[in-house]
């Protein structure tokens, strides 16, 4: 029997008074492409950030590849993991940010090789060859020596995807990857993501691109006020929503 790659159980998170996640539980299966939709403040980005531990959860647990994240159980209590252990757990996930967050002082190629050489300690020439291959895959073979400031938003985001893939993650997390892009640049990034989905990568995508969700997602999860309201096949959730709140959101977005 296959196990979920990500198991989220009763996760809660507050920022001061604001409750960003309320008792959320969810499974993500290997090879699945999941799109998280919902209004801003609904908790979808927070959920994503909890999985790669940029945000620490207040209660509940998240298992990735069978391993409990961020804490270990001992003697009936939970103890926080060290920074090194958390860093090691993070290697299983790749994160793509809304604002790209490329390293501006490094070229496209250096952005991609930084993690494998510095963190994983792999050989420079081997990593370089892989990085060039990744750049080719995202259609930017010619831009290896360009700095981020010399690239368009869409190109930067594609480099960021290559940077995340270079760590050979089991799970790719996309936090509104096209929200900061000019409309004419959205397509090139979505195309790369579609290709990635076809290759069998497990993906969690926070997005407002409902067209992309309809076409690529195996499952769509609609969140509101820190909770999952409705989930299911894309055609069901987007085409024939059951919940009133989902209907209201979809009619407001489209």
């Amino acid at each position, binding site marked *: 029997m296959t196990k979920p790659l990500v198991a989220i159980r009763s996760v809660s998170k507050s920022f001061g008074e604001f409750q960003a996640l309320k008792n959320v539980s969810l499974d993500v299966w290997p090879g699945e492409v999941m799109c998280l939709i919902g209004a801003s403040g609904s908790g979808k980005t927070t959920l994503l950030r909890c999985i790669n531990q940029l945000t620490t959860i207040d209660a509940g647990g998240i298992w990735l590849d069978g391993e409990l994240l961020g804490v270990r159980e001992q003697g009936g209590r939970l103890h926080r993991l060290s920074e090194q252990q958390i860093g090691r757990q*993070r290697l299983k996930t790749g994160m793509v940010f809304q604002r790209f967050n490329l390293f501006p*002082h490094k070229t496209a190629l250096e952005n991609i090789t930084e993690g494998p050489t510095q963190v994983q300690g792999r050989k420079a020439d081997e990593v370089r060859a892989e990085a060039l291959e990744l750049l080719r895959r995202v259609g930017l073979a010619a831009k290896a020596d360009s700095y981020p400031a010399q690239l368009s938003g869409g190109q930067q985001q594609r480099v960021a995807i290559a940077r995340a893939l270079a760590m050979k993650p089991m799970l790719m997390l996309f936090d509104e990857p096209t929200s900061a892009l000019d409309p004419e640049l959205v397509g090139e990034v979505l195309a790369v993501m579609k290709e990635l989905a076809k290759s069998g990568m497990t993906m969690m995508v926070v997005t407002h691109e409902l067209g992309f969700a309809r076409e690529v997602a195996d499952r769509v999860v609609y969140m509101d006020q820190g909770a999952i309201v409705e989930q299911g096949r894309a055609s069901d959730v987007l085409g024939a929503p059951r919940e009133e709140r989902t209907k209201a959101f979809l009619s407001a977005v489209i």
Partner: protein
Amino acid sequence: MKPAPALAEGFPDLSGMRIAREPHWFRWLSAALIVLVLAAIARAFANGQIEWSYVGRFLTVKVILEGIVNTMVMAVLAMMLGIFLGIVVAIMRLSPNPVLKSVAAGYTWLFRGTPLILQLLLWFNLALVFPTIGIPGLWSARAVDVMTPFLAALLGLGINQGAYTSEVMRAGMLSVDVGQYEAAQAIGMGRLRALRRIVLPQAMRVVIPPLGNEFIGMVKATSLASVIQYPELLHNAENIYYANSRVIELLIVAGLWYLLVVSILTPLQMLLERRFARGTLRPAR
């Protein structure tokens, strides 16, 4: 209304007309005034009790040249110590550990809160507090032998500089977008590696102008080490005028050397700024 392609009448063609040059009377007048004032000052000094031939003669005398070399050696070493301490303290200050944070804040408070000349005198006179220093059982020495003017000046200037530099560094690190930390963490980097590989190189661009400022300050602050017998430029100039009583002449010699060094440092700083501006200033290819 006329059809769109036709343009309305009454707006003459201005192409081919040049923009006239303005006379700028006030600029000429004020420049002339300043030249007059400067000439008056120069005349006053020329007729004053200054033997300019002494200035020329002592400008390149061996003791003065040794002094400027010692000044520069001390300024560079103390600045290096200051930058090292500054980075360490800034990292401590931004760490989540309350112990490190308090130690860093205390260091800045103590060394920024007392005059530099007082700190130099304290280091130099450390032997009055601890006649012998060392590691119990392993090594010990008389403090007077260890605390030479050189070491006292280096510690005094460097540690004081570290307190100021830490604030410059902290500002630089805070100027780097928080998304850069997150991106570094997302590829598995720990805090220190993210600081060293990602944040500090970007912070350097921001901190070089204030650090250049601090270094120029340091070159001049070394003159305070004259009070603890460190043979830097001012100390050596004083030694000469104690012997020949040409006080003003030798102070002018020292002043000219400080001006020369600072004038050379400014273009060097610009070169350094260009080096760290990688990825920000180049035109798109």
